C-alpha cells in the first residue's frame, strides 16, 4: 500500500463533484430567490452541499475554499436549527451566490493548473458579521444560541477516554453522509491520518483502495477500524472528525483479544456490551439503548454477519445516487467511429459479391442479416442519443444572469423558461452558452425599460423575458423574447449610416428584418452609454459569429413598444447530418438535405450568360445565381458533360438561393461528420468529410462558405 496520501487522481473527481454540487446549489438558490425565506429542504440541501465541499476541499488542502464553505455551512446550520425569522432573505441569497462564485472561480483556477489564490477573507468576514447579525437578533428575543457545529452534538454520548499508560485498544466505526461519494478514498484518508498515532491498525473492508465498490459498502455499513494506540480517545476523535464526509464517529474501547481476532469473529461483534460493561456500566447502558433504537446509518449495521453484509450492499441502492456517469468525450467519439465502421463492415458482409452466386439458398442468411441490420441501426441511434444533452443546465445559468443584471440595474424582471428539456448535441451546447448569455443580457439591459419607463408605457411593473426552446424540422429553435420597448428602426438605421456600415439606400428600401440585422454588424451598438453588462459594441456580431460556427442562424424581430424576439436556429447535432451525396467531376460531395430546396433538370437555354462571365439560370421565371461545382473546384472529369446530363440543385441559405450543377445524385443518407485532416489546409466551401457506406470518402459542402467564395471569386 502506498504510504503517501496521493491526491493526484482524486483531483478530477473533486473538481467534477464540486462543480455538480455548485450547480445544484445555484439551482436551489435561484428557485427560492423569490420566496420570503428558504424552506427546510433547501436549507438542508445547501447545508449538505457546503458540508461536502468543505470536506473534499479539506482533503485536497484548498484552505480558502474550506474556510468559505465552512462559514456558509455555519450560517445554514444555524438556520436549520433555530428557524430565525429575521433573516434578510435577499441578502442571504446574494451571499450564497457569492460563495458559489468564489468557489467556482477557484475551481476554474485549479482546473487550469494554477493555485487557488483568491482572497476569501473579505467574504468570510462579511458572512461572519451577517451571521452575528442574525444571531444577535435572536439573543435579543431571549433564545439560546445553538451549538456551533453539529459534530459536537452528534458525539456527545461517548465516554471520555480512561487514561492509561499502556497501549489502548479502540474499535472505531465511521459513518459517512448518505450521499457521500468516494467513501473508500475518504476512509483511506482517515486510515492515513490515524497511522501516525497507531501502533497497530486493522480496518474493514480491507480493499478500500483497490476496490471502488468498497465505497458503497462503507456507505451502507460504516467503516470499521481496530486501533492499538497510545493516544487517548479525544485525540483520535478529533483526528477522525476532521475527515471529510464523516457524519458520525463511533469510538469504543476494545481489548487486545479483539484486536487479534480482527473482524473475522462476529460473536464478539454481536455482543459488544459485556466488554463495555466491564469498563463502564453507565456507558454500556447508553450503548445498549442506542443499539435498540435502530436508526439507519447508526452502528447497528455493524452487527450484520458477513454473509448478510454483501446482500445489503447489493439490495439497497440508495435512490439518492444519480443514475448517471460521466464518460470522456474522446471515448464517445471513438464509439461513434467504431459504429460507423461497423455499419460499413455490415454492408460489406451483406452485399458481399460471394453471395451473388445464382441459385444460392439464402433465406436463413437473410433472416440473420435482417436481425443484424436492426441491431446495428439501434446501436447507432442509442449512441447518437448518448451525445444529446438537455438544455436545462444552460438555461439555468441564464436564470442567474437575469437575477444578477436586473438587480444591478434595479429592474424587476422575471424569466420564464419553456422547453428546457429539449435535447441538443453536447458539442452544440458548449457553443450556444455564450451567445445566449449575451442575448439575455441585452434583453435585460436594453430590452426591458427601467421602472419609470414601464410605468409610462402602462406596462406591468415586472418585466418579463421568455426563454424558449423547441424542436422543429431537425433544428432546435431557441427564442429569447422580452416585453420591453422593442427595437427602434429609425435609430438603428441612422446609427448604421452614421457608422458607415451600410450604403446610402433610404430607410424605406430596407425591410424591417433587414434593419434589425444591422445590429449584428461589427461595431454597432445603439446604447449611448457603455454599461458593465453590454454596450461595448462587440456583442451582437460575436453572437452571430459564434452561432454561424455551429451552422446556426439568428433572426431578429420586434414590435415597437411591445418587445423584441431573437430566434436562434441551430442544428440538433453536428456529428451527424442528413445529407445528399452527389458526384461532380472527379469529386464526391455531400450537402445537408435541409438546405436543398429542389432538384431541377435544366438545359442550355435556361442559362443566362452575363458579359462579365457570371451565369444565371431561369427556373419558372425566377432568376438564380448558377455555379458549376466541378468547374468551381477545377475538378472537371475528362469526358465533357453537358449541362443537360447533370442535375441542378437549388439550395437555400439564409433566404438566398443558389443553383449548383452536379453530375449525378448518388444517395440520401445519414452521414457522420468528420473533420478534414489538419494536414490539408482549409478549403473554402468545405466544412468536413465523411465516409460513405461503401467506404469511400466524400467532402461536405459548406454552403455559406461556398457562396462567400463565389462572391470573392467575382
Amino acid at each position, binding site marked *: 500500500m502506498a504510504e503517501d496520501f496521493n491526491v493526484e487522481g482524486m483531483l478530477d473527481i473533486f473538481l467534477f463533484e464540486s462543480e455538480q454540487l455548485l450547480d445544484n446549489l445555484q439551482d436551489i438558490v435561484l428557485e427560492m430567490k423569490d420566496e420570503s425565506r428558504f424552506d427546510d429542504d433547501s436549507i438542508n440541501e445547501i447545508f449538505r452541499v457546503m458540508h461536502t465541499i468543505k470536506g473534499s476541499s479539506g482533503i485536497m488542502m484548498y484552505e480558502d475554499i474550506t474556510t468559505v464553505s465552512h462559514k456558509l455551512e455555519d450560517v445554514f446550520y444555524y438556520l436549520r436549527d433555530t428557524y430565525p425569522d429575521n433573516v434578510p432573505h435577499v441578502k442571504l441569497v446574494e451571499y450564497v451566490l457569492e460563495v458559489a462564485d468564489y468557489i467556482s472561480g477557484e475551481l476554474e483556477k485549479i482546473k487550469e493548473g494554477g493555485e487557488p489564490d483568491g482572497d476569501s477573507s473579505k467574504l468570510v468576514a462579511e458572512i461572519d458579521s451577517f451571521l452575528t447579525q442574525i444571531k444577535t437578533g435572536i439573543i435579543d428575543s431571549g433564545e439560546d444560541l445553538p451549538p456551533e457545529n453539529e459534530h459536537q452534538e452528534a458525539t456527545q454520548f461517548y465516554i471520555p477516554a480512561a487514561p492509561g499508560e499502556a497501549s489502548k485498544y479502540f474499535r472505531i466505526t465511521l459513518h459517512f453522509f448518505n450521499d457521500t461519494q468516494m467513501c473508500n478514498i475518504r476512509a483511506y484518508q482517515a486510515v492515513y491520518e490515524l497511522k501516525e498515532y497507531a501502533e497497530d491498525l486493522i480496518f474493514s473492508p480491507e480493499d478500500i483502495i483497490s476496490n471502488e465498490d468498497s465505497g458503497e459498502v462503507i456507505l451502507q455499513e460504516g467503516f470499521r477500524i481496530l486501533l492499538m494506540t497510545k493516544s487517548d480517545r479525544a485525540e483520535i476523535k478529533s483526528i477522525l472528525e476532521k475527515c471529510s464526509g464523516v457524519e458520525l464517529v463511533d469510538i469504543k474501547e476494545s481489548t487486545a483479544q479483539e484486536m487479534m481476532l480482527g473482524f473475522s469473529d462476529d460473536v464478539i461483534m454481536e455482543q459488544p456490551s459485556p466488554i463495555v460493561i466491564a469498563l463502564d456500566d453507565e456507558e454500556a447502558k447508553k450503548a445498549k439503548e442506542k443499539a435498540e433504537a435502530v436508526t439507519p446509518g447508526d452502528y447497528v449495521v455493524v452487527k450484520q454477519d458477513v454473509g448478510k453484509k454483501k446482500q445489503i450492499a447489493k439490495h439497497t441502492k440508495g435512490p439518492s445516487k444519480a443514475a448517471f456517469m460521466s464518460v470522456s468525450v474522446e471515448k464517445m467519439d471513438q464509439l461513434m467511429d467504431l459504429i460507423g465502421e461497423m455499419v460499413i463492415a455490415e454492408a460489406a458482409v451483406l452485399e458481399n459479391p460471394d453471395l451473388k452466386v445464382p441459385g444460392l439458398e439464402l433465406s436463413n442468411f437473410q433472416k440473420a442479416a435482417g436481425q443484424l441490420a436492426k441491431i446495428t441501426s439501434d446501436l447507432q441511434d442509442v449512441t447518437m442519443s448518448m451525445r444529446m444533452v438537455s438544455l436545462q443546465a444552460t438555461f439555468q445559468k441564464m436564470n442567474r444572469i437575469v437575477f444578477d443584471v436586473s438587480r444591478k440595474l434595479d429592474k424587476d424582471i422575471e424569466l420564464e423558461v419553456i422547453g428546457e428539456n429539449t435535447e441538443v448535441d453536447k458539442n452544440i451546447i458548449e457553443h450556444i452558452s455564450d451567445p445566449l448569455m449575451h442575448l439575455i443580457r441585452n434583453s435585460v439591459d436594453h430590452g426591458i425599460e427601467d421602472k419609470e419607463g414601464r410605468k409610462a408605457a402602462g406596462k406591468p411593473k415586472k418585466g418579463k423575458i421568455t426563454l424558449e426552446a423547441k424542436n422543429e424540422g431537425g433544428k432546435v429553435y431557441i427564442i429569447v423574447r422580452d416585453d420591453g420597448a422593442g427595437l427602434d428602426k429609425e435609430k438603428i438605421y441612422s446609427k448604421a449610416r452614421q457608422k458607415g456600415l451600410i450604403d446610402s439606400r433610404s430607410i424605406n428600401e430596407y425591410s424591417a428584418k433587414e434593419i434589425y440585422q444591422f445590429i449584428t454588424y461589427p461595431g454597432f451598438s445603439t446604447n449611448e452609454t457603455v454599461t458593465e453588462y453590454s454596450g461595448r459594441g462587440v456583442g451582437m456580431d460575436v453572437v452571430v459569429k459564434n452561432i454561424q460556427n455551429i451552422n446556426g442562424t439568428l433572426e431578429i424581430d420586434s414590435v415597437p413598444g411591445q418587445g423584441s424576439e431573437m430566434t436562434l436556429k441551430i442544428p440538433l447535432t453536428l456529428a451527424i447530418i442528413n445529407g445528399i451525396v452527389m458526384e461532380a467531376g472527379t469529386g464526391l460531395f455531400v450537402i445537408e438535405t435541409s438546405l436543398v430546396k429542389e432538384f431541377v433538370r435544366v438545359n442550355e437555354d435556361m442559362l443566362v450568360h452575363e458579359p462579365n462571365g457570371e451565369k444565371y439560370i431561369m427556373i419558372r421565371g425566377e432568376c438564380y445565381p448558377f455555379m458549376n461545382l466541378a468547374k468551381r473546384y*477545377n475538378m472537371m472529369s475528362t469526358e465533357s458533360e453537358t449541362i443537360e446530363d447533370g442535375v441542378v440543385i437549388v439550395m437555400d441559405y439564409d433566404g438566398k438561393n443558389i443553383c449548383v450543377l452536379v453530375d449525378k445524385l448518388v444517395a440520401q443518407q445519414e452521414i457522420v461528420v468528420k473533420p478534414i485532416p489538419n494536414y490539408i489546409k482549409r478549403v473554402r466551401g468545405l466544412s468536413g468529410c465523411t465516409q460513405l457506406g461503401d467506404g469511400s470518402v466524400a467532402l461536405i459542402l459548406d454552403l455559406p462558405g461556398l457562396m462567400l467564395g463565389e462572391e470573392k471569386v467575382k
Partner: protein
Amino acid sequence: MAEGQILFSEDNLEEGQKGKYMTFKTGNEYFGIAINYVCEIIGIQPITAVPEVESYIKGLINLRGKIIPVIDMRARFNIEPLEYTDRTCIIVIDVKGTTVGLIIEKIAEVVTIDDEDIIPPPSLTHRNTSNNKYVYGIGKIGDQVKMLLDPEKLIKDEDMSIMGSLADDDADANEE
C-alpha cells in the same frame, strides 16, 4: 522498478528499429524511410480528390474509419504521373501525430543501413537543392544506393520556399 523495465524494453525496441529503413521505388530511384515512422502499408484505394490543394496531395482515403490525406510521391518529386497499378502501394506514416499516406510505385524491402554507410547528399549541383531538402542522406548497401527521406520535411507545406527556389532555378536556366 516497473518503470525502469519499461524504459529498458523501449530502448530495446528503439535499438531494434535503429538503422532499419523501409525502401520503395518511385521513378527510377529507391528511397528509404526510417522504419519507426511507418505505421503500415496498404494497397492502393479509391481516393477522393480534394479541391484547391497542392497538386501532390491526391486527396483523402478511408483507413478503417480514419480519414487520412495521401501524397503522390511522383508528384512530390515532380516526376510525370503514372497510372496506378496493383503494385502501387500506400505507405502510411505517422509524423508527430500527423498521419499521411505516401503513394509509391513499388514497395521494396526493409534494409539495415549502418550510420557509417550514410553520407550527406553531395551538393555539387546547386540546382537541385530545393528537391534535395527532404533527402537528408544517401545510404549505401553494397553497390546500391538508397536516398533517405526526412518525413517531416517531406510532408511539410513548403510552398513558399519551393516557389522561391523554383524561381531561382528558372533564372539559372535562363542564364544557361
